């Protein structure tokens, strides 16, 4: 796990291993009249990797965006390290310090180089010394196998490279949980692999990861637990081996037969 940072938001206390680090309880979310999440409950333990799969429009991305408060929910509760995400008095800074998110479309800052993208938040938000952040940023860039690309602008990087810069940028804030929202969906097949490898290494380092993905092979290999969602509910969940070979619900079986 990352060492304790000098945080602006109070002392850093490692979250105990036995309690769920992320916990969703009966989460409901509607966009206008359309209810996209209809009572989702799930727990994620520290160091666990969970994958959320399901057909398009089943609320997977909404679910993941709720966890760091990008999308407010109407009912239910989401806690991250015991902190209620939906609490209006919540200090969003202290929540988002703990939760990193990587998007489908990378969303790098196009006017900053790869290194500047990674350094920006720690320098600007956490007000950490620049030299220290730069050292850490260079280490992260090498960790995602982009050494030599530090001074390149996002527009001159391939999709896969941009996505790995985005991962490094999130990691620079030293989060405890990483959210991945279909991070390979916009990539060429040959660059998908390098991004998945980066995530796999991250998972092996003990990072708690929540992934929305369509990469079934990857989910099977890396996940500790798989959740299948359809029409805003969790239809079925289980360990990958059992989930992929022995799904019980007909909807799960139909979905798997289409994608496998």
């Amino acid at each position, binding site marked *: 796990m990352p060492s304790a940072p000098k945080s602006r938001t109070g002392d850093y206390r490692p979250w105990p291993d036995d309690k769920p680090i992320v916990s969703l309880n009966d989460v409901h979310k509607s966009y206008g009249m359309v209810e996209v999440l209809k009572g989702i409950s799930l727990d994620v333990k520290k160091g666990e990797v969970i994958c959320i799969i399901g057909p398009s429009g089943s609320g997977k991305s909404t679910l993941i965006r709720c966890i760091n408060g990008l999308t407010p929910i109407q009912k239910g509760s989401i806690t991250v390290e015991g902190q209620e995400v939906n609490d209006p008095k919540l200090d969003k*800074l202290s929540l988002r310090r703990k939760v990193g998110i990587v998007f489908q479309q990378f969303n790098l800052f*196009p006017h900053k180089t790869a290194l500047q993208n990674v350094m920006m938040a720690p320098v600007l938000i956490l007000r950490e010394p620049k030299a220290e952040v730069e050292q850490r940023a260079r280490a992260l860039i090498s960790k995602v196998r982009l050494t030599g690309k530090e001074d390149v602008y996002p527009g001159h990087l391939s999709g896969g490279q941009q996505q790995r810069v985005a991962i490094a940028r999130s990691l620079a804030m030293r989060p405890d949980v990483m959210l991945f929202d279909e991070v390979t969906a916009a990539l060429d097949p040959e660059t998908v692999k390098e991004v998945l490898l980066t995530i796999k290494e991250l998972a092996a380092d003990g990072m708690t990861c929540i992934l929305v993905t369509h990469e079934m092979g990857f989910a099977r290999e890396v996940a500790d637990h798989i959740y299948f969602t359809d029409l805003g509910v969790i239809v079925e969940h289980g360990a990958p081996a059992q989930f992929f070979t022995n799904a019980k619900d007909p909807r799960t079986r139909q979905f798997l037969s289409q994608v496998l």
Partner: protein
Amino acid sequence: MFELIAPFFRHLYERTGLNFIVFYDPHEFGRFVAGISISLQLIFWSLLLSLVIGVVGAWTQRSQSAIWRGCVHAYIQAFRNTPPMIQLLFFYFALGAFTPSVDMGGYTQPIISSFVWAVISFGIFGGAFNVEIFRAGLDAVPESTLEAAESLCFSRWQTYTNVTLPLAFRISLPALTNNLVSLAKTTSLAYVIAVPEMTYVLNQVWSDNINVPEMMLLLFLYYVLVVTLLATALHALERRLVLPGYGQ
């Protein structure tokens, strides 16, 4: 400088009759230089004021209050849809009539000079366009990029200053260049309220010396030069700020 070119132009006049009097007569040369100076100052301050109005207006347009948004909208409609010369005359003669004058000992002088009225008028005219140009830039910054900043703990203000503005400015720049160049040319209208800028000065020179074609040519070349320099500077800025890998 003057001593250097004067013999040539005097000679030119004597031999060919082409009367570029501002280049060999010391008195007319003085007028000419003063005209350049006033003209450049007028361009500088008008452009600056229009930029300030543009930024403030674009920001106000995103205000929560419908009243503020309505005010900006009304302002844009009023000043985009009327000719700049009418605006100038309106400011100088309609509003100028109500601004106080000070006694200069024997004669009175209005507090707001015709030069200042011209700056105000052109600033407001150009600003109306700049508001829309900056708004388009702000609207073009992808929501998802701002979301990334938000998820990295940026506050709204930090996102605005570090992500939204730098991107919006780059997006706005080509349209902004067009408008600023256009505004720089519009400043020649100030001669209708007797601001002694280039057009006004040369008008006086050709009235005194009956050398209309020569002075017209000079006026023409002056604006070509000034506008070329301005456009070159703005294009250089555009190239400097270009987002690598985007739109090329």
